[in-house]
């Protein structure tokens, strides 16, 4: 009796294995043919000439791809509202892949929802997905845009007459500090005596303070500006009004000030979006951790403005070629912070992929300002 039951069980198991084996590819095919609904969520307006616009531009490109349906929502705060937007996209629109693009969406919001929807893929921009700590259907992607800020710095170094350049920053957090430091190091590669004055406004989007900071830096003699705030529009326009030059950030702001705009550090999110979407369409594992720079096509430079000198273009293009070849390191010793502490001893190098750089908590020597 017992043995008989066992045999039946074994037969059942065999049969079901066969069924799975034969239907597996079929269901995969069905999966591939169904259009994939992709939800994109922005923390600010889609036309902010900045962070959100960079994502919206990539989302607009996604809409042209076959088999992709895009649903979008802008001005979603980092509160329970974003959880509702995500569940709404999943439950009401049938989204299978979400791009919640603001940093603050990750913890606790994405981490709260992901376990409830194991079949949905969450791809967050900017976060630090960690193996073993975060769910498998969650991933994070980001770009090494400090490479572009370094190139901004090289151009600024050539163009600045006062040898004082300025940075309007939101908050003293690692991603921002890395850009400030890269900008100054780029400029110092041209003239080792250049200083970069930084002002932190305290928030991602604070038009009045951004204008005040720009004016106050201009009063101090700064003649080339760059920034790391959500919407660089105010800084670009204010600097241009003061007759100063400016390097852009996030997206191209050339339209806002064609004469003052030298070049800019831009995101190219389409690269990351496509990689993640292709994995979803093919049913491959979700890419949990994606990072890339100029070489991988995650970031790009704005075309040079008309006022950029030939020497500046030549120098920046040379450095860019090295970056594209993967033979250039921004953070290398000897490197000191602006309080005199040694960060990297001579001969030491931090590669772009080094996670140590994502914890940056210092301003390098030559930056005027404090955290």
């Amino acid at each position: 009796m017992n043995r008989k039951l066992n045999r039946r069980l074994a037969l059942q198991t065999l049969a079901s294995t066969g069924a799975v084996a034969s239907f597996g590819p079929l269901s995969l095919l069905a999966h591939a043919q169904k259009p994939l609904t992709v939800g994109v969520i922005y923390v600010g307006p889609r036309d902010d000439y900045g962070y959100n616009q960079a994502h919206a531009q990539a989302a607009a490109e996604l809409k042209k791809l076959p088999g992709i349906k895009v649903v979008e929502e802008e001005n979603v705060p980092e509160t329970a509202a974003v959880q509702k937007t995500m569940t709404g996209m999943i439950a009401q629109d049938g989204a299978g892949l979400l791009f919640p693009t603001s940093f603050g969406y990750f913890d606790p919001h994405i981490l709260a929802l992901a376990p409830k929807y194991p079949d949905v893929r969450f791809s967050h921009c900017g976060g630090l997905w960690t193996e073993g700590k975060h769910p498998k259907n969650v991933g994070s992607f980001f770009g090494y845009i400090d490479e572009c800020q370094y190139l901004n710095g090289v151009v600024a170094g050539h163009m600045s007459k006062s040898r004082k350049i300025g940075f309007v920053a939101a908050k003293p957090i690692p991603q921002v500090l890395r850009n400030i430091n890269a900008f100054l190091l780029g400029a110092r590669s041209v003239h080792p005596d250049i200083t970069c004055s930084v002002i932190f406004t305290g928030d991602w989007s604070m038009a009045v303070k951004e204008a005040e900071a720009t004016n106050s830096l201009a009063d101090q003699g700064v003649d080339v500006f760059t920034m790391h705030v959500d919407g660089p529009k105010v800084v670009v326009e204010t600097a241009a009004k003061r007759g100063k030059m400016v390097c852009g950030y996030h997206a191209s702001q050339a339209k806002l000030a064609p004469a003052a705009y030298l070049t800019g550090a831009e995101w190219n999110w389409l690269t990351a979006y496509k990689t993640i979407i292709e994995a979803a369409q093919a049913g491959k594992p979700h890419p949990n951790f994606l990072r890339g720079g100029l070489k991988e096509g995650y970031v790009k430079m704005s075309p040079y403005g008309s006022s950029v000198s030939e020497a500046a273009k030549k120098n920046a293009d040379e450095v860019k070629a090295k970056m594209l070849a993967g033979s250039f390191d921004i953070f290398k010793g000897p490197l000191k912070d602006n309080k005199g502490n040694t960060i990297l001893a001579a001969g030491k190098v931090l590669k772009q992929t080094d996670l140590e750089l994502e914890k940056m908590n210092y301003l390098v020597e030559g930056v005027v300002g404090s955290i």
Partner: protein
Amino acid sequence: MRNALREIALTIGALAAALLVFGALVWLAGVDPFDMAWLLFKGAFGDAFSWQNTLQRAAPLMLTALCVALPAQAGLVVIGGEGALVLGGLACAAAATQWPLPANLAGSVLACVAGALAGALWVMLASALRQYRGINETISSLLLAYVAIGLFKHLVEGPLRDPASLNKPSTLSLPEGLRIGGIAGSDVHWGLVLGVLACGLLGGWLRLTASGFALRVVGGNLRTAQLIGLPATRLVLLACALGGACAGLAGAVEVAAVHTNANASLIAAYGYAGILVSFIARHQPLAIVPVAILFGGFGAAGSLLQRRLGLPDASVLVLQGLTFVFILASEALRQGDPAALWRRLWPTRPALKESSP
């Protein structure tokens, strides 16, 4: 009874008028107005998911609206609820992570009480400045909100910062046992119940008790109140403390139920949205509940409108603005007798009363 019916009819009329105008606007923009109206309803109240969405958005607004309504009942215009909310959230996070609170319901209650206390003191400060130093409470409460946000950021990015929060400065997270979960397995957290309870209790207090009545006398006519010997200053401070406690509680619940720690995402303008809710509810705590739900509905429906019709976020703000303009305009119809207004508009029509002896 007739009054209540008229109130409801006026509100519904105002809503319908706003929808009509908004429908015309979206029609001009090339969107089918019937599609729009259907999505609005579906997004806000169409199914269980929409209701959860609406109610969750409404929860903090009930509490922050009370921070405007209670001082208003005492004759003060306080618009700094945002400050009480962020400090309430901060106090909750600080209490929960710095003190050894028991990791159970009692601990959660204590953490929320800490938040409510912080909010109460902050708004009371604005009213004390008015009562003792003659400083306009509208201006001072608004400015104090900026001071509160500054304090919040200083502490969250400085002494209270969790060193592991790299790109998003936050305090340490609340222990699991202190967090507030959803009601009966839904996404809606207990903040909603607290909001409805607070509106009900405070509304009852104002209507049914002697001290509540005294407060309304102070708000109605300060001279009369002083003449009959009411402790006006104490009542004003009390109203502001209660209002501030509600906003502080809203912040504490946001931290304990949503964010799990205090960080800058808490500064989401719930305090300012509460001003609008309270004014539309004419500072009546009981009326705040439906108005806050209407507000939550706008948020929920706006989300769906953006996703389905590709309308910009601003379009829902337009609808919201239209609704409130119409609701405020309907005030004009509320005061007088509609029949008299009708007679005035059509003077040739014989009045009915003349035929009776």
